């Protein structure tokens, strides 16, 4: 962006009147980023509230599963987690790398 502006500034005056200056970031961004609708979104907030609660519950539940898995490796009791079978945890591991 800066180099484009610099290049434009280096143009001869006569050329410059016929070319427009490079548009700023604001103008070039995706069209949606340029519209700023300020209509309140109460339905979205309502849904988000539910979504946030679900996320937190899941995180807490997974914490329990992780602890149980840990206990399992310690005791070798042959415990299988009820929420996610081992294969699924292995697959989930894929997305960490």
């Amino acid at each position, binding site marked *: 962006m800066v180099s484009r502006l610099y290049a434009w500034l280096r143009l001869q005056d006569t050329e410059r009147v016929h070319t427009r*200056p490079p548009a700023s970031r604001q103008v070039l961004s*995706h069209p949606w980023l340029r519209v700023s609708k300020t209509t309140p979104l109460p339905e979205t*907030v309502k849904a988000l509230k539910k979504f946030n609660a679900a996320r937190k519950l899941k995180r807490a539940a997974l914490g329990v599963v992780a602890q149980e898995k840990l206990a399992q490796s310690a005791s070798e009791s042959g415990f299988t987690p009820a929420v996610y079978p081992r294969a699924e945890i292995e697959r989930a591991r894929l997305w960490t790398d």
Partner: protein
Amino acid sequence: MRRQCEIDLLAGISHPNVIKIYEIYDEPEKLHLVMELVYGGELLDQIVVSSVANRPCVVTQLTFLAPCQAKGSYTEADASTAVKALCDALGYLHARQIVHRNLKPENLLCEGQTLKIADVGLARVVSKGDMMKVTCGTPGYVAPEILENRGHDSGAVDMWSVGVILYILLCGFPPFYDEELPALFEQILHARYDFPLPWWDEFSEESKDLVRKLLELSASRRLTAAQVRDGLPALCLAAAPRH
């Protein structure tokens, strides 16, 4: 050492929307990170709290930040501000070959009105096993190429996550969801999502267009952070003089 290079790279990150890492102590068994303290909590929580704040409600008294966050109702413009900040930071990181790889709402924090991305670059310094502990949760934000485990170390994986986050910022629920992981993976691998009515009624075609271009299966066709932020060449108003 490679690890030392990665650590130097992380310590060198300086962007207003990325949580700053001040010091890194690398010990054989442990890695200690001293990071910027961010008070505002998660972005998605903040949206709910600040929207509730204009109602006389007990919830606001639970968080001492609510008074300065009380900016009224949440709007599409707020979502766009967040996405702009996100793409600005990702553009900066991707230009330095740093890929987050684990973008999700839990990693989007706020400090006042400023978005702060957490855990940047941790995927590169933390071992696979340790990362698993950090990332256990739903893989709903993960790009299809990661699930397929093909070469995926490009910024495009982050942009897919931005697509998922943008979708949630607009309608309040995720584009891909299933209690069973295999079914969830199927949805992601085929980009099987839609804009259900009536929830998507009021959103502009532009907003859906951006979601579609981010939740794009082909990593090479997916919009980059710089393209979202600065636009596609075709969108430029004035052709840049070449030199």
